[in-house]
């Protein structure tokens, strides 16, 4: 498909805008010198990808993304940043030679992936927005065919919950131990 025909569809304009947003936010996540700014830029990236999901007729996943990721995960991140007392100001600086090698590596990776997908999927279309995926289908899938992975993931969450609490728990001081024993 030629660029002209692609530009003609309005969906693609929307895509372009959201895509650029996501990209920009992503770049800032990895280059920002301020830790809190990086987290907030991630919020932006995640929001943008939720929009992309909507474009791809995956509403449920989009809203799950917003709820879980942005709602919970980012908040958790902010908690983590606060507790570790990361300098909320400017970072001390990134490693110079690491930057060059890493940049080269990630560039190579991008080239490889892009080339791969272009050569594999040339101009394959994607379903348009006019056909939303029924949540019913997802539900049936999750609790029907994939009920076992579903349950296992539930256990994973439980383990993460308990594990997180256990790992991060503050060791009790001798005074507190004495209190606990006598009570």
């Amino acid at each position, binding site marked *: 498909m030629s660029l002209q025909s692609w530009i003609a569809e309005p969906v693609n304009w929307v895509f372009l805008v959201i895509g650029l947003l996501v990209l920009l936010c992503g770049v800032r996540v990895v280059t920002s010198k301020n830790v809190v700014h990086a987290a907030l830029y991630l919020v932006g990236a995640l929001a943008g990808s939720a929009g992309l999901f909507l474009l791809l007729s995956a509403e449920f996943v989009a809203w799950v993304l917003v709820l879980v990721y942005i709602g919970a995960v980012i908040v958790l991140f902010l908690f983590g940043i606060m507790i570790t007392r990361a300098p909320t100001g400017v*970072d001390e600086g990134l490693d110079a030679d690491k930057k060059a090698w890493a940049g080269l590596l990630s560039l190579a990776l991008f080239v490889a992936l892009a080339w791969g*997908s272009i050569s594999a999927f040339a101009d394959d279309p994607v379903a348009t927005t006019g056909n939303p995926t029924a949540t019913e289908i997802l539900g049936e899938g999750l609790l029907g065919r994939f009920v076992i992975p579903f349950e296992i993931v539930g256990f994973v969450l439980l383990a993460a919950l308990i594990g997180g609490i256990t790992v991060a728990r503050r060791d009790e001081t001798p005074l507190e131990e004495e209190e606990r024993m006598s009570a």
Partner: protein
Amino acid sequence: MIGNQFLILAAALFSLGVYGLLVRRNIVLILLSVELMLNAVNINLITFESMLNTPEALGQVFAIFVITVAAAEVGIGLAIVLLIFRNRRSANVDELNLMRW
């Protein structure tokens, strides 16, 4: 819409995430980059789902799983970061090199 546009976007996000993973000094920022990578993967999954139109919306189901696991992983990861911070008063990953030769 072409599938490739989404895929290339996702590839770019993934590469950015990799860059961040390799470059950032703060552990929390590394975890952030990992989230970025996972997000890129999600985009890929949904795009493939759209392209292939499986009857059970396999791509989306998988994307949900990915999100869930990512959330769990962040929880544990931050707990560990907390411990490290408590022991070493610093979240600088360059200082965490005890397991070297």
